[in-house]
């Protein structure tokens, strides 16, 4: 596990290095801009993600564990996947909310397939995001078609996760 962990990091940084090199070959300004923006984004996102990650631990600690285990726990099956999918669709707010709620539910006793369904539903059709972002920028009919064909996907993701089990 430790070796795989290091290998992924090495691969990622090799990718960073080759992209940086490609940019530098094209022009020094391109390299400088890319490096500056990447580092700046990292430091701007850091506090937001720290708040969410640490917060999810405390939220998990005060959530009623029995209730979570019953509703979306590892043995809650397809009903749990359905509840998680609905919860994903109605989760409001930006990225930090969806990830913090999902992580809190996982730490608080939620089953991984159920949380995978939650995260998939939230990514694909969280209602506030559809209405605030997508409808404003895309032809509304395409947005609703996309939402409609996405309806079964969280179930498939959750069931798939159950079937293949932990990799």
């Amino acid at each position, binding site marked *: 596990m430790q070796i795989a962990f290091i290998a*992924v*990091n090495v691969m*990622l*940084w090799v990718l*960073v290095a080759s*992209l940086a090199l*490609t*940019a530098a070959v094209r022009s020094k300004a391109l390299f400088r*801009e*890319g*490096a500056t923006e*990447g*580092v*700046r*984004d*990292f430091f*701007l*996102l*850091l*506090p937001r*993600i720290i*708040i*969410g*990650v*640490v*917060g*999810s*631990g*405390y*939220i998990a*600690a*005060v959530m009623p564990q029995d209730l979570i285990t019953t509703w979306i726990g590892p043995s809650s099956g397809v009903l749990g996947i359905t509840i998680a999918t609905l919860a994903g669709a109605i989760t409001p*707010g*930006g990225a*930090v*909310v969806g990830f*913090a709620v*999902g*992580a809190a539910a*996982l730490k608080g006793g939620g089953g991984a397939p159920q*949380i995978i369904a939650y995260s*998939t539903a939230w*990514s694909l059709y969280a209602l506030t*995001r559809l209405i605030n972002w*997508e409808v404003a*920028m*895309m*032809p509304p009919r*395409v947005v609703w*078609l*996309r939402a*409609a*064909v*996405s309806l079964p*996907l969280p179930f*498939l*993701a959750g069931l798939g*996760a159950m079937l*293949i089990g932990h*990799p």
Partner: protein
Amino acid sequence: MPERRRRVSSFEWSTAVIGGISLTAGIIVYVRDGVARVTAILANDLNLFGGMLPKMMAGCLVSAFVTRLLPREVVARLVGTESGFLGLLIATLMGAALPGGPITIYPVAGAFLVLGADAGTAIAFITAWNLLGYNRALIWEMPFFGADFVLWRSRVAVPLPFLAGALARGSLRLLAGRGGADPCK
């Protein structure tokens, strides 16, 4: 289509709300279980988070360079003019590869439609960006859930963009077959 740069703002309401709820939860844990539990939770979360920092940093740099090396116009042309299964495949790959937030992604998908791609292709692209994008997985998902969970989730998500695109095409064909106008034209 002007190139839009991602902008990461330093304040966000969602974060403030989560911060407020977390603080309240932290105080409840402190009152109920004492300071040892508060520090134990903090240590546990920061430990997971610390391991993800190099990946997060790499994710931010990859995003910044890919934004510059793979112009959105090129992606739009590449995807917008392909059709059939190959169209879905390229749309999925590009959706997973293109960094940025909703403000950069939806206009690109809109451009596919203008360039002549069908709604299924645009839908496969958006689905892939949502479910398979490395940008979101590295920077957001891994610090929260850990690498194991993210790999598990990503593995089951691989076929989903194709499926969404194919379902969209099928629905449109069905609607057209019944004599209705293509709702996406």
